């Protein structure tokens, strides 16, 4: 009976602890012997998912962000979940347009980065049950293009 190894981290939706999630992710990725470059990619993707949960999921109130790291033989899967307000994940953001809009906090780069730096990204977001991001990085084959 092989059991897949899981590590779970729960942080509050405060910007203070995104770095903690990043450190945990980098520890797991180093243990899995990812290359230095891959580890950096994973750190960024995990941070982007957490940053979004901090900025958008719970409005002004505090909630939890749960990260589930699943260590597979040839890949690391990270699920970043919140129980926040969710969103319509189908509408892409124009970064250049956003840059010229002083009211826009982000430039829509978070999801772009996740998709560019990971091998597989899935976004499941519903207004009722929050957002669930799946980030996958393969151990052997590296791809910078998604």
């Amino acid at each position, binding site marked *: 009976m092989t059991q897949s190894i899981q590590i779970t981290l729960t942080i509050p939706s405060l*910007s*203070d602890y*995104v*770095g*903690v999630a*990043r*450190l945990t992710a980098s520890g797991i990725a180093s243990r899995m012997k990812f290359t230095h*470059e891959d580890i*950096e990619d994973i*750190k*960024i993707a995990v*941070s*982007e998912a*957490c*940053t979004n949960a*901090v*900025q958008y999921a719970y409005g002004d109130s505090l909630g939890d962000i749960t990260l589930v790291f699943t260590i597979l033989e040839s890949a690391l899967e990270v699920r970043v979940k919140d129980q926040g307000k969710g969103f319509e994940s189908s509408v892409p953001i124009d*970064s*250049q347009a956003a*840059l*010229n809009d002083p009211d826009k*906090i*982000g*430039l829509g*780069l*978070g999801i*772009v*980065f996740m998709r*560019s*730096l990971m091998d597989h990204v899935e976004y499941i977001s519903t207004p009722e049950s929050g957002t669930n991001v799946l980030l996958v990085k393969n151990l052997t084959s590296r791809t*910078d293009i998604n």
Partner: protein
Amino acid sequence: MVLDLNVSIRDRSNIPIIDLEGEIDVYTYPKLSDSLKLIFEKYPDTKDLIINLGNVRYIDSTGLGVIANGANQIARLSSGVISIINATPQIRKIFDVSGLMSTNFALYDNEDTAMSRIQPQG
């Protein structure tokens, strides 16, 4: 100093330079945006601003967003540009991936290279 950002501002031939050390993320970025605000107040006419990323170990979309906003601001204020220096290969990659390279900033290997390009104006 893990997970934190140190910001210091200096001046070389009247060009403001921001030296950054640490990580730029959703927690630390206000330190960078505050220092940009300070510089735009102190040097409203500057055509150049150098950001030294030599000791920055981590940057993500939040940090890039602040730099891109700063670049936009200097463009509006004085048609100026932001020069990024000493970016590591990983950080250069992040700039590439962002697709923001067309915006008002330039990447140079180091301070002297950046200064030599800027000098004619400064």
